[in-house]
């Protein structure tokens, strides 16, 4: 009998969204890099293709919205865990309307929708690290305490601990899950510090996989039937040293996916999809 919290990393569906042309100029970014729109779109198509073909997920692709330059980063607008989907209230005002299309899509997937309506709450999905046993919510420029509280209310089974994010955009800008109980973490000082806080807050023990580059620490982990542990990670071109680290993971199916363009607008691998496990219950 599959109980609670079983099957971390098991997904059946993914929601992605197209890249609007406005991304090149208007998307929020912390650096002043020029984005090659076509390259970004190719990258994103490849990403979606991996999810669809290589990993066999049912991919729901939402159309891009030109008025929402950041809309490709769907992770920030919804947190899905089990049968419940929390529609967030993104920290960046320009992104608030991104939730609308997402909400509809998740409704269609028969998830229980919880909406964050509190005017004082902000939360970006990029700040939410779900380890399979508990949540860590980064308190960042985009996410505040109230947002975290609402998340805790939405997912009552799990402990929700807050972690300050001193540098970087999101909590997941320097970490992600690499397996059940395995945290991939960047080696920068803020990243290590955040990890230590997480350690202290947690009743559980985690293994860590430290990679030289913070950005490379953002990977997509899945546990799929017939494929086992799957890790979608950065390419050798981007972070050669970090890729060497991933290559030591013998049990994982490693899938490098390029993210050269989207990273210019602070997009990481996890940012571009919302993963859902539909058949788990009933």
């Amino acid at each position, binding site marked *: 009998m599959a109980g*609670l919290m079983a099957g971390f990393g098991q997904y059946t569906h993914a929601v992605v969204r197209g890249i609007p042309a406005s991304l090149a100029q208007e998307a929020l970014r912390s650096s002043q890099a020029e984005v090659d729109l076509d390259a970004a779109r190719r990258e994103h198509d490849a990403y979606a293709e991996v999810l669809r073909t290589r990993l066999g997920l049912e991919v729901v692709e939402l159309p891009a919205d030109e008025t929402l330059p950041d809309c490709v980063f769907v992770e920030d607008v919804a947190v899905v865990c089990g049968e419940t989907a929390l529609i967030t209230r993104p920290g960046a005002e320009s992104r608030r309307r991104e939730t609308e299309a997402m909400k509809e899509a998740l409704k269609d997937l028969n998830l229980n929708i919880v909406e964050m309506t509190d005017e004082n709450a902000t939360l970006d999905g990029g700040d939410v690290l779900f380890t399979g046993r508990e949540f860590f919510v980064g308190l960042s420029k985009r996410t505040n305490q109230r947002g975290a509280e609402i998340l805790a209310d939405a997912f009552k089974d799990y402990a929700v601990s807050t972690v300050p994010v*001193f540098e970087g955009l999101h909590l997941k800008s320097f970490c992600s899950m690499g397996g059940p109980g395995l945290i991939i973490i960047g080696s920068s000082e803020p990243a290590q510090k955040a990890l230590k806080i997480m350690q202290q807050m947690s009743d559980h*023990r985690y293994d860590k996989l430290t990679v030289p580059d913070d950005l490379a620490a953002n990977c997509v982990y899945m546990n799929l039937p017939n494929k086992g542990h799957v890790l979608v990670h950065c390419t050798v071109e981007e972070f050669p040293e970090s890729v060497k680290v991933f290559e030591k993971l013998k049990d994982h199916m490693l899938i490098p996916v390029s993210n050269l363009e989207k990273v210019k607008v602070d997009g990481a691998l996890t940012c571009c999809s919302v993963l859902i496990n539909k058949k788990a219950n009933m």
Partner: protein
Amino acid sequence: MTTESGADSEAKQPQEKKETGKGKAKAAAEPTSPKNQQEQLPAAVGHSTPVRKEQQEEDQESHRSSTSRLTKSPLRGVKKVKIMQCKVTLLDGSDFTVSVEKRATGQVFFDKVSDHLNLLEKDYFGITYRDVENQKNWLDPTKELKKQIRTGPWNFAFNVKFYPPDPSQLTEDITRYYLCLQLRDDIVSGRLPCSFATHTLLGSYTVQSELGDYDPEEMGSDYVSELRLAPNQTKELEEKVMELHKTYKGMTPAEAEMHFLENAKKLSMYGVDLHHAKDSESVEIMLGVCASGLLIYRDRLRINRFAWPKILKISYKRNNFYIKIRPGEFEQFESTIGFKLPNHRAAKRLWKVCVEHHTFFRLVSPEAPPKKFLSLGSKFRYSGRTQAQTRRASAQIARPAPFFKRSSSKRYNMSLSLDGAPIMENHETPAKDGSIDGAAKVIAKEDIITTVTTERMAEEEKAEQEDVQKETPEPAPSTPLRHDTKRSPRLYTHDPLRSELSLPSSPISSNKVRRRRRESARKRASSVSPVKSGTGCRRRQARADHKAALLKEQALLLSARRQRLEQGKRHGGTLFSFSLHLPDLSSILDEDGYITFPDLSEMRLLPECAQNFLPIKSPSLIPCFLFIFFFLLSTSFSVPYALTLSFPLALCLCYLEPKAASLTASIAQSYHDHDSSEEEETDSEHTDFAFDGEMTATESEADDDSEMRTQYSFIRRVKGENVFIRHSNLMLEDTEPPPEVVKHQTNVSELKRSFLETTSGGGMLGEWEKRLSSSPLRSPRGDEAPMIEPLEPQDTKDEQPAGDETKEEVGLKGTVSTLGWVSSSQKVSADQEEKAPVATETETAPAKQMSPDGAEVAAKDMPVVHTETKTITYEAAEVDTNGDTDPGVLLSAQTITSETTSTTTTTHITKTVKGGISETRIEKRIVITGDTDIDHDEALAQAIKEAKEQHPDMSVTKVVVHKETEITPEEGED
């Protein structure tokens, strides 16, 4: 379909309620039990729940009825043993009435209830009662019932006290069944929050275990509605439950319960006992005590967590609760974090729960209660079996799995059957149960004292194994602790030596009086037999001494405090406190050894106008009054004269007290409330000297004042309102207290007190300390190492001290007899004529020791004194320790200093791992400063003796006597 489930499903409505064979109180139980159940629930969630009148009234009634029954009891009429009827609400919501003697201990009562429940693995359970504030308290098994239930009816509830982190490790299904019942109650009441999906899942297992397989014909379509499965039970939930239930065909009740528990245990609030509190900034938070440690919540968010290994000490004082934290990743020093609880009782309750949880889950065997004779403060310790012990014991349960009926508990419409069928049909004979359990218990009780404990991580078995592997095999639990088995704690209460007073000693005032007193105390302590006759005389003498000293000290303290206040208001410390033991008043010591005085304001004897007069409301009034009264008597005043004088004096003192209290409070919040508190501070500057002490003695744990000074470093909310431990400057000052700060640790043995309250038990110390040595050594890993690394739990990692610290202390170790060390006491008074460091002892013992944990970590570079010195070293034959070329791997090093005016005791504890053997070395340095009239030989003998007493399992390997005579009276730089 099993017989059990079949029987259950057939039982249905008419049989839903199983009552005890005795059928007592059945009529009463019928309407009240479900109601009771509901009423308890919200209150149990937190502490701020107001008293519920309904419940109280109801309770009163039942109380009356039970007392009337009592008078009829013909059995013990001759002996006049009062028999009380105790009503216990069991986990299934039914009531069970037990007759126990009024003087019976909680254990007797608890055993009766457990027997009734046919429960062998009972250590996870406990009995609760409601206090006057309707708060849930755990009945202390070691104390008499009547001492715990002072007011109100004798109504109790049987509950799970320690939620096993892994219920599958319980031996018996019946135990798991009761755990399930508790959890269902936790869920329905909202104490254990779950998502909808979890409610559904857990509910479906409940249905399966209670009703058995789904049977469409018999059950119909709304059979789930009569069960309470969630706080807000919706039709949707019930439908989902039914959907799941249909899929469980063939699952036995025991299996269903196992599934239930396997899921429930993963819930984040499983087994978390929540207490309302406020942090230093008066932000409402919740403190959650659980198997792994202390969790701090703000709203639903976990904002901090302190695993047990991270906590060095827990204490409370008045309504403050403190934890002292091992220095960690982000702090360089130990820090103490204070929380405000709604009241003193709540603080004490939280403290007790922490002590119990720590002992149960972290220790292999409980520590013995403190046998300190010098201290006040709580003697409370967890005395039951620990989880490790109970697991061992239950592994030996040999009875066939008892058959038990799963009563249909959480029903909306409770309909009771009157057939009086007993809950246990297959009841084993009590005698047999008793013998199994009883035997085990005796052993366990002995164990408490004689077993030393291998370190055990309750949290994860894997970790345990790791630890065991990495640790050297610690000697089997055979080494006797130094607790004397022959003495029961109760004996100590009447032990005349307990009447010794621990006093603050002032550095300036008449040294001689105090020295004499100390010496006499030491002589007494050093005599072989601790029990002496001629109590009264000595006691009176001691008290007179005490009072004389006190008066003198008051003046000094006044100035000391004033100076301190002037020094800086940023200090959040309690400025001074002392503890005092009043032997004659043992009758008013409450169950934990506190002095409790009736609160006049509560008694409402006084006219209203008088009640508004602050001093009269003060809980300190009576103690003050008594104190002054006896003091006057002892100074040869006549009784009436003393009486007339002491009342106004006491009032005076109490008038000043609230100001003192508010001063402390305002300092505690000093970051914010400067404006408001300023006035009071100036007001009370010169007033509150005596009160801290008095209040310490009456209302709170008698903490060492050295600890008091460390107590206000606070959680700070930094960025995004996350909470961090911020370490105040105080810690630094701790190592170097201003000379006028008075301390009252009079000898080595006093040191021990500073741990975990006024501890001296040592068992706890040992355990706590041992963790230092038991943390698995991890080789340093480079971050570039591309391997998966186990995330070292903060707990273990933190136990390794920072590099510099280590070095420093190793260095010190090498320089046993340098002058620089000797003169490192700042508190040496200026008029000293001679410095005479008397004894330095190095003790070694493999892996195991009792070590006092001190209030201070100190090792300071100090000016060196010009002196003539004489050093004599005695070394034991096997001095493998000092000359060892292999220094081993240092696990931890710790330095503890305690001082009195003329004695400075410094304890170094170093733990190393050498060739697979972990070794603990304790070095004690006792520096006696003072006039030539000290008998050094005697002092040395005394010091050695004390050390041996404290560490019976360690051997003294080296004694260095180092005598210095100062050339110049002034300290100078070398």
